């Protein structure tokens, strides 16, 4: 019983982390129909920036605020100077240019910080553990859980209640119409890209102490992230939540019961969902 609860909580923490990364990806896709492969690299940049910040300032919390903003700014630059230039060339071109960027960022990271995993200590305030149903659970994972829930609430508020959110939702359903009605869509795109990469950076910062900082972390989360966004439905935030939860539990319990083929099941789930409902569980746009 205890193992189950702990395993469930582990899965939940990883699922929430996945949600943070995939929500940015799915938001950008819903808005611009661009599958940003480099998204995972921005996540990794968040983790590395946070390591650097910790080294220079010595405070995790400063990094948590500053690093995602820098990452988001880089995302804005990418939209402005790369994606916008090839926008006329169609989605394939936009898609492949993010590919090139993935290579450039991943290799730059290896260049600057080396290929060894870097230690990022858990901030002292959260280094303890909590007792849950009679077993010990690391406090930092609970923090990930609640922090992600906070971000989720913030995003839901922005999307549902603010003017920006209304514009974004409108643009997701009909981009040309929104543009025709006088909204500066390129600017909104840039903003959404910024928010999306900011989310990736945020996830990267909190992932550092959780699953350590190493050059392979981008590709690792990229694949899981694809599974989440595709299963949940590209462009659907609700889908991202549900699918993140599913994949988190699948990887957590999969490792417990079928360690050898745990990895297969995530892809199987993705393939089956795509076959039965090509737009994903909650996706609308085909």
């Amino acid at each position, binding site marked *: 019983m205890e193992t189950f609860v702990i395993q469930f909580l582990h899965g939940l923490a990883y699922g929430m982390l996945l949600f943070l990364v995939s929500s940015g990806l799915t938001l950008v896709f819903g808005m611009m129909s661009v599958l940003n492969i480099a998204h995972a690299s921005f996540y990794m940049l968040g983790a590395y920036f946070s390591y650097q910040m910790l080294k220079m300032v010595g405070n995790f919390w400063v990094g948590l605020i500053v690093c995602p903003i820098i990452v988001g700014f880089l995302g804005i630059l990418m939209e402005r100077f*790369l994606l916008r230039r090839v926008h006329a060339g169609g989605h394939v*071109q936009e898609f492949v*240019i993010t*590919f090139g960027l993935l*290579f450039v960022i991943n290799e*730059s990271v290896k260049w600057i910080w080396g290929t060894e995993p870097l230690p990022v200590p858990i901030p002292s305030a959260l280094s303890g553990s909590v007792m849950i149903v009679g077993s010990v659970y690391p406090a930092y994972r609970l923090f990930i859980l609640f922090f992600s829930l906070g971000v989720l609430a913030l995003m839901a508020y922005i999307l549902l209640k603010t003017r920006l959110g209304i514009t974004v939702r409108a643009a997701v359903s009909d981009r040309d119409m929104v543009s025709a009605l006088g909204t500066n869509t390129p600017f909104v795109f840039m903003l959404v890209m910024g928010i999306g990469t900011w989310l990736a950076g945020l996830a990267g910062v909190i992932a550092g102490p959780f699953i350590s900082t190493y050059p392979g972390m981008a590709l690792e989360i990229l694949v899981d992230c694809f599974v989440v966004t595709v299963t949940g439905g590209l462009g659907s935030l609700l889908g991202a939540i549900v699918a993140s939860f599913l994949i988190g539990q699948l990887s957590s319990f999969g490792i417990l019961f079928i360690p050898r*083929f745990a990895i*297969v099941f995530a892809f199987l789930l*993705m393939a089956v969902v795509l076959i039965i409902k090509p737009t994903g569980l909650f996706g609308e746009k085909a």
Partner: protein
Amino acid sequence: MGNKKFYLPMAIAGSVLAILFPYILPKFQLRMVTEIIIMALFAMTWKMMLNEGGLFSFGHALYFGLGAYASVLGWLHIKGLSFMSGILLGGLVAGLLGLILGAFLVRLSGTYFALLTLAFNQLIWAIVWKWRDVTGGDDGLGKFPKPDLLGLSMKDPANFYYVSLMIIGIGLFICWYFTQTPLGNVCASIKSNEERAKFIGFNVNASKLILLTVAGFFSGISGALYAQFQEFIATSTIDLGMSTNVLFMAFIGGIGYFWGPLIGSGIFVYLSEYLSSFTARWEFFFGLVFIIIVLFAPQGILGIVKKKK
């Protein structure tokens, strides 16, 4: 596609050069040329799917890798399997997979198509990786027989080059011929407007399925050749990296041109060899080159050459 006066001498010069390569090139260069032509067929099948059918494959290594594994397992476990039969086995298994997975894939297009190919690729990759008893997992498979072909030893680089050249030549010719057939035209119409093609009365899904099967078959052939070329295969033939490489090759050469994949695979193989000889971070420059090409020459290297004329 245009200027015959220009093409004929080029074609003759190219063929003469291709035949003379083993005599004029040092050994390691010949190896690279062999790798280039093998990868060219693979890149051609990728380009064919995008260019003829508008289908963006994001898991193309699936067919390539499966062809490689199927042929190697054939050579390992079927006694007396000849060189050609092994290669064909690789092609057939990959083609069959193209047909089976194609049944699920044809209903999709665009990003969803790309993502389902990715899902299948990852699925099969994970199985190959974990099923150690058969595939060797991370350790890969080596030490499989390299049978002679018509008394010619395939261990000789020049012989192997000629045989590859012949197989690739036939493969490329069939790929080209495909675009000239009515079926190829239907595929082209699907690419420009799937709804309308359907409306006119073409069987869109069947055409896509045939395209996928043909592409799978030739990817498998090139995968099998690649296995014999390397004399060793590992999960790197079927992983996402290989799916990325083929995309790079096709784009660098130029998506819209028949010879694009060949030029692209040439540049890719040479550039990666050259860059990796003086920096461990060669993929950085690769990504940079790629971004620059997509930004400034979206039609690839051939696009630049053609524009100047």
